[in-house]
């Protein structure tokens, strides 16, 4: 029931690698990481959900909030995710059409750099 976030930067694109669960208790941690990046002037962000065991609407809300912030500065947020139980949540909410979702970080990095 914890969320760990590792932040790194690659060619101007920030990568937030999440590990654990994103729920009402831990989502504020993700929100502040996204806000910190935007405040630092980073608007191209990849959120890597590969090691996320659980995400609920609190987490989705934070991702949408982050997307609004970077889009206002012509940036983008891409996601890395291949877990079917999490992809299903993005499909149900229609957010799979809002966020580009890649199966691997390599794929996301290549596409974001283009």
């Amino acid at each position, binding site marked *: *029931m914890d969320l760990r976030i590792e932040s790194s930067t690659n060619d101007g694109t920030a990568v937030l690698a999440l590990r654990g669960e994103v729920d009402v208790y831990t989502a504020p941690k993700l929100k502040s990481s996204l806000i910190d990046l935007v405040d630092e002037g980073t608007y191209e962000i990849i959120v890597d959900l590969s090691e996320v065991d*659980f995400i*609920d*609407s*609190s987490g989705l*809300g*934070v991702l949408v909030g982050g997307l609004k912030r970077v889009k206002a500065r012509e940036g983008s947020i891409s996601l890395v995710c291949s877990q*079917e139980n999490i992809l299903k949540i993005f499909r*149900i909410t229609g957010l799979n059409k809002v966020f580009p979702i890649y199966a691997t970080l390599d794929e996301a990095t290549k596409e974001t750099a283009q």
Partner: protein
Amino acid sequence: MIDAAPLVPVDGDRQNTVLVTIPAEQEFVGVVRLVVGSAAASMGLNEEEIADLKLAVSEACTNAVLHAYASSPVHTERTVEVQLALSERAVEVDVCDKGGGLAPGTPAATVDYEEGGFGLTLIGCLMDSLELLGDCDSGTRLKFVKRHATA
């Protein structure tokens, strides 16, 4: 507090109940997920069914924790009670609070709880039925059912 007890079989379908009461605090929502995951696994639900249940219960508890007691007097006992009725055919979930409550029959689609407003939408999509009731000691009672794929 966690209680578990077998119930009288209904139509030959053995039923067990698990009752969890948590403080209406954000850090305890994960505790309910752990209990739900373990209880559902013990009843033989598959991985997808367990993930759906954990998400639905998490959303219901999150709604209660964030909104149920927002306008309640300070001395109000702030708890969320989750009851699981597990049988070979289905899992019935009741999530109750004792807060101000929503009007019974409020359509799920009109309730915008979350920053993204996805909470009840997700429960409705993942479960086989969803009811929002108001008879839980004046609080809100959310009741939903997940039928086993194999039942």
